[in-house]
């Protein structure tokens, strides 16, 4: 069978670097970011000392550092670095997966109402005087409640289409945002109000191994689920009808993705408050590097998201004596970067 190929003139784009080189570069970036995050901080510890303390965990080294040095590295920075990396990776893969499922690059994990729900849960816990695990539990629970509400309300005649889902997500998000405002209105201005305000802005300052232990299962389980569904998400990204025609039960698959995202988002908000923009911006950058295929996009998004939050958090905790709210920095960086990425993506489209 010899058919003439009607070439439309465009040759496969010559990319500057092969994909694996870029993937490797992202990995190196992650490593550098993690080491940087471990070595900087308000408490002055020389980088080589910091690394030696870390190495002393696995191989015997003579300690030339103080007990405080060791505590700072192992009890403050190590869990904080891991938590920031974990949340950054989780938020980024959530964004990448959702953008795939919704076929819309403007979708972020907030869209399903999970973040506002979790934010309400956390604020409620703070205003009732709880902290620690009760706070995490409440944030997680209300994130799930918000998602369930979206699921129930968006379902009309047994089906929920994309527009209905997004709009319902906005409605539920607004509802929980209003409830958060109500809590702030009722909060004690001496104690819980500033705590709520700071927590809502997002921070890893309360990171401990215990908190890491709480957040990790949720984030890892959610991320693992998304990774397992990577090809499904690709198919879902063709659109509902195409996916159904290919024999997928679109409704069920979509909700599985949402559940995974809720798990990640709930766990992240619970331990770090609301950290916006990561799930929106990072997948864009990752797509520019490796394209839209979830099989490459998910791991690269994870590494980029982790690196990004690591660097942002390092800035947040060491730029000044005061802890700068994370959400403020992610928004200040995220908004212009996102605008630039949008323009570049658009330009690429027009050029193609």
């Amino acid at each position, binding site marked *: 069978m010899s058919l003439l190929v009607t070439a439309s003139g465009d040759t496969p784009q010559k990319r500057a670097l092969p994909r694996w080189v870029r993937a490797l570069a992202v990995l190196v970036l992650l490593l550098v970011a993690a080491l940087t995050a471990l070595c900087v*901080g*308000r*408490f*002055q510890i020389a980088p080589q000392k910091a690394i030696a303390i870390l190495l002393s965990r696995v191989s015997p080294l003579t300690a030339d550092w103080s*007990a*405080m040095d060791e*505590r*700072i590295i192992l*009890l*403050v*920075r190590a869990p904080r670095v891991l938590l920031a990396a974990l949340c950054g990776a989780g938020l980024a893969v959530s964004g990448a997966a959702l953008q795939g499922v919704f076929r819309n690059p403007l979708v972020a994990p907030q869209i399903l109402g999970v973040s506002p729900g979790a934010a309400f849960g956390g604020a409620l816990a*703070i205003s009732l*005087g709880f*902290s620690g695990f009760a*706070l995490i539990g409440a944030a997680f629970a209300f994130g799930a409640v918000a998602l369930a509400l979206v699921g129930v309300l968006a379902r009309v005649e047994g089906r929920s289409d994309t527009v209905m889902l997004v709009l319902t997500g906005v409605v539920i998000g607004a509802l929980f945002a209003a409830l958060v*405002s109500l*809590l*702030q*209105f*009722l*909060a*004690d*201005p*001496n*104690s*819980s*109000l*500033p*705590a709520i305000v*700071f*927590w809502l802005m997002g*921070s890893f*300052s*309360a990171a*401990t191994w215990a908190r890491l232990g709480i957040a990790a299962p949720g984030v890892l389980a959610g991320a693992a689920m998304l990774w397992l569904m990577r090809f499904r998400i690709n198919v879902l990204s063709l659109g509902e009808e195409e996916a159904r025609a290919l024999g997928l039960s679109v409704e069920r698959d979509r909700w599985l993705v949402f559940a995974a995202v809720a798990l990640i988002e709930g766990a992240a908000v619970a331990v770090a408050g609301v950290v916006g923009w990561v799930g929106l911006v990072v997948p864009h950058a990752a797509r520019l590097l490796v394209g839209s295929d979830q099989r490459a996009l998910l791991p690269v998004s994870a590494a980029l998201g982790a690196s990004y939050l690591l660097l942002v958090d390092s800035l947040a*905790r060491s730029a000044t*004596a*005061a*802890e700068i*709210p994370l959400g403020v920095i992610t928004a200040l960086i995220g908004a212009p970067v996102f605008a630039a990425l949008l323009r570049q993506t658009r330009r690429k489209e027009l050029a193609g």
Partner: protein
Amino acid sequence: MSCVGIVGGAALIVASCAPLRAQADCFGDLAGREVCLPGPAQRVVTIPMPSASTFIAVDGSAQRLVGMHPSSKRAIDEGLLGRMFPQARAIDASVAGVGADGFMPNVETLALLDPDVVVQWGDRGDDIVGPLRNAGIRTALLRYGTESLARGNLTLMADIAGKPERAKELIDWRAATIIDIEKTARDIPEARRLRVVYLQRAASGLAAAGANSYYDFYIRLVGGRNAADGLAGAPAINAEQIAQWDPDVILLNGFEEKLTPARIYDDEILSATRAARERRVYKMPIGGYRWDPPSQESPLTWMWLADLLYPEAFHYDLRAEIAHAYRLLYGHTPSQADLDEVLRVQINGDARFYDRFAASASK
């Protein structure tokens, strides 16, 4: 008969009111405006949290206070003030909300109380004053945060109460205490000036008071140094930063009810600070009002901190000082149990040098 009685009564009222109206009182508030009252205010509402207790202290009674902020009310209900002035517990506290925007007055509730004057914040924007002005309610504005403003507030309350001599009495006490403390603090050598951190928030997250705060003022007054004086305001910080400061003394705010020194001692990082190792972590006392921010009781705060920082240099008999001050401020003599409660002996008891505040140590 009855007719004559009414006329007579009316005449009496007119007669008794006439001199009052003639001596219409005018004074400046802390926003630099002139406030004129037809006479000593009989119905006062306070919206800033510390003002209710200040007004009660200045007036020596809770009778003229008809409305206050719900947070003020809670401090009164929970603290000693409610026991010293039981009628204060019945005062209306629905004039404003509690949380964000909590100083926005509910004008209609206020109008029902028919106050002669409403005390409102003068440094938090006009939005919370405008509605009062609009409703034709007389306002007196105060500002907050420094010792001189604290004295200004005392004066303002005394002017409202029509008892200017009370302000002088209370301000004299402050001035004398400052002179007395400075006399000793001056001789503390630079090398022995302890580094102190005041944690304005610690129960959930951490926040330390920076330079130019009132806390900074009294830490320096008693001869200490504010380890967080590189900060402005009271921003959130992390444990690592406190480790870097490694303060000699940590002061825990009195606002967060559940906050105790255990928060520091149980923290893996904070427990390694010098303050924790030497058990010099103290929770701020609460008397007629919380001791942390400026109030009518501030001189007691200073003496308390001076005694704790430099026990060899300062020798205030705090229990006696409190008893004396409460007679002056509230006309009330506190019991030993009251004093323990004010000093939070239960919470602070096993902290270093706190034994000097024990009942047995007092003469």
